[in-house]
């Protein structure tokens, strides 16, 4: 598959990988991306399932399949507006929410399953992020080369806010970020796909500038890797499969205790650092 060509002059480069990690034997994370060529929309999904046994893996897989088939069908009637794209994405996520809830109701062994979701849509210069749970999306703005050379701390912005107990505690100021790794309830989510009906999600749209990139990751990644290290690597090496593999390796080297997954998206072919994009349909180790 060729690099996903975006409407002139920009190009979207996507690479991603999911790994079961150093502790778990089963991978409940899933990553997926595709390009609706007729409408020229790029989609990317990262889902981190939960619910024990086979439930977690099923929930993430189910959400991806449902969202993809729903989005494909709905995109055919795309009205070339940002609002309509948002509607399509929200409806697709709602359909996935229902699919998971149905599976929960039908099969007792899946009664606790659910999944986090980061669902990205890119159209023209618009970036839409639909989010539920504690997987994250970071924006790495287009670097001015001089700035990058001077600064030791590359800039990045977290575009999503975790739906977690810890985040609520942080927001209330009862704990500090230094407390986070020790909080007994650090893994407890306050929202996810499959848990509530109707689905509760956050939806945000951004304009992106050429040369900027997105890092989408599961908690197994961001709990093990500092964003400074990750963003520096991305700035140095650009958006490609090798960078993704190195990012995953960083989380494995840091003994991540969960499944670890990353999707990188690069906007525009700044040849200086986006060397080559090798998108694949799905890469699930």
């Amino acid at each position, binding site marked *: 598959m060729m690099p996903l060509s975006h409407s002139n002059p920009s190009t979207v480069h996507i690479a991603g990988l999911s790994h079961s990690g150093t502790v778990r034997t089963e991978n409940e994370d899933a990553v997926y991306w595709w390009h609706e060529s007729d409408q020229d929309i790029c989609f990317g999904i990262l889902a981190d399932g939960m*619910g024990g046994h086979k439930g977690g893996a099923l929930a993430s897989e189910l959400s991806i399949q449902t969202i993809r088939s729903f989005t494909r069908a709905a995109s055919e009637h795309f009205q070339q507006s940002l609002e309509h794209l948002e509607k399509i994405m929200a409806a697709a996520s709602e359909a996935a929410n229902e699919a998971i809830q149905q599976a929960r109701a039908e099969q007792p062994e899946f009664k606790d399953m659910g999944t986090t979701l980061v669902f990205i849509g890119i159209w023209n210069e618009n970036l839409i992020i639909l989010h539920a749970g504690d997987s994250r999306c970071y924006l790495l703005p287009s670097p001015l080369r001089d700035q990058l050379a001077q600064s030791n701390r590359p800039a990045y912005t977290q575009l999503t806010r975790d739906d977690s107990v810890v985040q609520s*505690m942080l927001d*209330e100021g009862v704990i500090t970020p230094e*407390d986070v*790794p020790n909080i007994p309830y650090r893994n407890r989510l306050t929202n996810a796909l499959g848990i509530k009906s109707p689905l509760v999600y956050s939806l945000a749209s951004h304009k992106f500038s050429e040369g900027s990139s997105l890092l989408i990751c599961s908690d197994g990644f961001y709990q093990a890797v500092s964003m400074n290290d990750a963003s520096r690597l991305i700035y140095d090496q650009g958006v490609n499969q090798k960078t993704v593999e190195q990012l995953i390796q960083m989380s494995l080297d840091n003994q991540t205790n969960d499944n670890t997954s990353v999707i990188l998206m690069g906007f525009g072919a700044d040849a200086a650092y986006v060397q080559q994009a090798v998108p694949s349909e799905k890469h699930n180790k």
Partner: protein
Amino acid sequence: MSADSKKQDLSNLIHQLYGFYTIKTLILLAALFLAIVPQRPFFLQHLDDQIFALTANEAQQRLAANEQTLQDERSFYEVNLEDIADSLGSIMTGDIFRSSDTRETLTPSWFLIAERLSLLVIAGLLISRLNGSSGRASSYLILGSAGSLLLLQMSLLRFSNLWLPLGITAQYLVAAYMVVLFQLRFERECDTLRLALHKVSLAHGKLLQEQGVSEGVLETIEQCLPTEETQNLTYDFAREQEKRRQFESAISAYSFLSNQNKRFKDVQQRLSDLRSAEQRRTKITQQQKNHPQALEATMIVSTSTQMPTLGRYKIERELGRGAMGTVYLGKDPKIAREVAIKTMSYKQFDGPQLDELRERFFREAKAAGRLNHPNIVTVYDVGEEQDLAYIAMDYIEGSSLDAYCRPDRLLPVETVYQIILKVAEALSYAHKQKIVHRDIKPSNLIYNAQQQQVKVSDFGIARISDESKTRTGHVMGSPIYMSPEQLKGRAVTGTADIFSLGATFYQLLTGATPFTADNLPELTIKIMSSKQKSVRDIRSSLPASAVRITNKALNKDPDKRFANAEEMAEQIRKALANDFRAKVA
């Protein structure tokens, strides 16, 4: 299933047949061959021919010649004139033999059968009598007999005009003997080794069994010979495995035994009981994959074949399900004491996580085992079996204080003070031993109303299982009684227990928890940042001391709570004396 069992039968049969395949079988087969075939191979008859040629007189020689001629006639069309003349000559001289007579005329008709029977008898003797130890004597006997047979054959021909071809018998006797002798040397060595292995394995198996080790026992037993002793050991092992709930292993042991001896004791009955129980369990496993605790409980309760055990304790019945796992009523058979056995299933944990959990569980449980206080549930023993850890403790008649937490079911205020005083004293004792409970709450306090007695249960261990579970595991217990520092994941000291005891006191007095919220994040935030309502706002009849004590115990700042549990106990004692005029020991 039936196809499988047929396959098993077939392989058993092959195995048994293979067991028959020894050198003795070959000897018997050779004898049968010689006894049955009408025409023996020529090379075997050669000896008889030679003996005849050596021994026979002229007339007898002619018979052999006749025989030769008759044989030749089959292949030649032309008849030699000389031969005809010879034949005519014989007739003319009035010889008793006619030209068509052969050596067979000298052989009595019974001989044919007798010779063949004797071959079989010899085979039988060789197989049954030769055990390899007969050595030189037997070789003389055998060679002597063979020689005698040949001499007998010669003299009968020479002097009695009888032709009894015993050459084949003699050859068979010698050849078979040589083979047996040769083979037996190896078999004897093998047998010696096999017997030695049997003895060693049997002893080893018994030792393992005595030590309560189950790994490798069956493999060891499989190396033993199928003696009664082996079968007894296998049976005992299978019973033991059954008791330990290692049903698969028990089934393999019973199957092994049943293959050796189908009628051994009640092995068939046990095997079929276990197999049907196994099928039921498989069904349950499929149904309840996501309920490891329930599954484990089912495994213990549903087997009727034998009273299950955990360690040395006999499991009598299930008492309930705790945060860690199922709790059973057990009996220590050595001293006939009833014990409550809490189990913690390992199934819900992954490798490195499990190692850490086990390490912590045993460390904490052993520490708790050192506590000896009238208001602390005594821990007798900790141990583990394949897939779970267990802790055996004093079995207390009574119910947990959960039962008295609702506004309509509250205990008298003075009783609540008495209970909290006793718990505070127990905590004071434990904290002095550097042991923190970590999870003081009504459900961990067991109360016996008749005896007015309360005991603190689960010192140190209550939170372990919870804290080790990740998001993908099970729902972690509610933080209702947790101190703010615990919620922050900070190092916990005795003052955390004081906070939790304050929350328990609050609830036993009012029927309400100090902090309530619709969801977990809200609740944790309230515990960390909001002040609770005064107990007198909920129940105005309470004495002022109730407000004072609960507020001090529930202070967000550990340094502003009671400095230690003894200080809290002292406050309660004073309040009991002042507010209730109660005599306090």
